[in-house]
């Protein structure tokens, strides 16, 4: 049946045409199909493929301010990598990027999940609150960084004022002056940015947990905690995986927030890979060294790629979501 219907449809799609047409038409049609992809292909080549390849080339070149006006510089072997990776600032930036990412994701998940559970309850103002919570995620990142720089000021800063008013501290803390505190402020800011993202995605996952399943567990005598850990969490696990992977990808490349808040200081104590690579390239004009560190960042980010693609495997096969 379906075979007949299919061929009938195919026949209908190709009504009577000249006998010669089928010979060149498929090729023309195929060309037309590729034409739709042409602008995107050109863009991907120009904005992604070439810069990535060029970054790799640069990382093996002996660059200097004088070579900026040329596309190529003398071959340098591995010297950019050895020089960059034996630099203590770069090493600590790499380690810090990992600890920063891990801490960000952990707190973003805990806060985001708590808020998602809260919004999953029925209460007035729920919709209103859920839409307002998106705000931090939509702001320009540099503005957010600047905003928190203002809040964490030593003199007349809101955070110090709140802590003093609550009698938690006596003297204002110099967040910008102490390496440890500076790191904490960047971390808090980044958590603030990512919470809406976690909340919205986890909330939409919670909405899809079948109510009958939770009801059945309740009848079987499961308490709220057991229902959460034995039913809800296993059901939404795929979304949790996606959120963590995307969160990882967003966080390893954090740049604007650090520049807006601390510019990597004090004494490079808040440098992450991206900001240190920026310093090497655009402050020291050592493009080769910057490119070498960028390659490291690229490898770390690409570490998530196979997982990300695997999670999107349905999309690859062209199935409608």
């Amino acid at each position: 049946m379906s075979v007949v219907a299919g061929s009938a449809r195919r026949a209908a799609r190709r009504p009577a045409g000249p006998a010669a047409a089928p010979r060149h038409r498929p090729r023309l049609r195929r060309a037309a199909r590729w034409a739709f992809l042409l602008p995107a292909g050109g863009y991907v080549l120009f904005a992604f493929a070439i810069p990535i390849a060029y970054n790799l080339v640069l990382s093996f070149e002996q660059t200097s301010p004088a070579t900026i006006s040329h596309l190529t510089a003398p071959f340098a072997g591995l010297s950019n990598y050895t020089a960059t990776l034996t630099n203590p600032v770069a090493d600590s930036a790499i380690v810090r990027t990992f600890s920063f990412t891990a801490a960000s994701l952990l707190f973003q998940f805990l806060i985001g999940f708590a808020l998602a559970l809260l919004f999953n309850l029925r209460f007035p103002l729920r919709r209103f609150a859920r839409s307002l919570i998106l705000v931090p995620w939509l702001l320009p990142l540099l503005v957010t960084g600047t905003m928190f720089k203002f809040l964490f000021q030593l003199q007349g800063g809101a955070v110090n004022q709140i802590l003093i008013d609550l009698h938690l501290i006596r003297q204002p803390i110099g967040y910008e002056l102490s390496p440890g505190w500076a790191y904490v402020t960047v971390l808090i800011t980044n958590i603030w940015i990512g919470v809406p993202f976690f909340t919205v995605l986890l909330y939409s996952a919670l909405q899809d947990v079948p109510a009958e399943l939770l009801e059945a567990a309740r009848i079987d005598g499961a308490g709220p905690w057991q229902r959460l850990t034995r039913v809800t969490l296993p059901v939404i696990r795929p979304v949790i995986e996606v959120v963590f992977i995307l969160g990882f990808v967003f966080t390893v490349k954090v740049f604007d927030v650090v520049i807006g808040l601390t510019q990597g200081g004090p004494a490079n104590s808040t440098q992450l890979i991206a900001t240190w690579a920026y310093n090497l390239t655009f402050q020291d004009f050592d493009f080769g060294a910057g490119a070498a560190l960028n390659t490291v960042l690229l490898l770390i980010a690409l570490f998530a790629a196979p997982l990300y693609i695997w999670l999107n495997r349905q999309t690859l096969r062209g199935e409608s979501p």
Partner: protein
Amino acid sequence: MRTATRRRLAAAAASIAALAALVVLLFPLYAVVVASFETNSQLFGASQYSFFPSVWTLSNYTTVLSQQGSHVLSSLIIGAGTTAATLAIALPAAHALARYRFRATALLVGSLLVAQILPSIVIANSLFLIYHQLGLLNSYLGLIIADASYAIPFGILVLRAFMLGLPGDVIAAARVDGASEWQAFCRVVLPMSRSAIITVALFAFLNGWGDFIFALTLLNGNTFEPVTLSIYTYLGEFSQNWGEAMALAVFAVLPAAMLLIAAQRYIAAGLTVGSVKG
């Protein structure tokens, strides 16, 4: 009776918890808006932070409006340009990837997923030298091309996911009626994809508007500069011009706030479709 009371109490508790969360989450924005109406001496080096100042001034706004108009305009051009470039490139590509089966479809979609992952600083480093050769530094064209590097892969994936759900029969019918592939795309696919197009356009605009990293690396500030870059220069090593920086920050936040009010459902859709199902 008793369960109803308990339920009402639980709802009240949840409301209070939600309000508390909102107060904590939104306080930074409140502080910025308040600060934009204060003078520098109230803001920088003050002995106390006041949650509700006794003296308010409009001077930051008058200064910003007279000095920063061109920067706001630059940001608008960059946002609009990023939106236009994203839609022009992503729409046909999404259509082709949704409707035709290429042998390379999985490879193409996979590389778009990878493109989304690439850190901007890596691209900025190379683009600086490439643009230096091509004369694209300090140009709107160059900056918009760079700024679209997040929105274009995102746009193709979101639009394709949406277009896969469109009824194929309608497009086939248009083709039978003699429409070319391009006409079917323009007259059938595009109108049906309206909501996904709005979502992608919003995100592309916010990306272009809020970009900082490419503006910092690909512009030297002598020709034009977007609002994000001006805020940054307001608070450089030698100046602590908080009042004006905060007034400018309010301008920088406006598009996001307006879009959230006017188009909230498209934003929520972009968040979920773009990541979970995209």
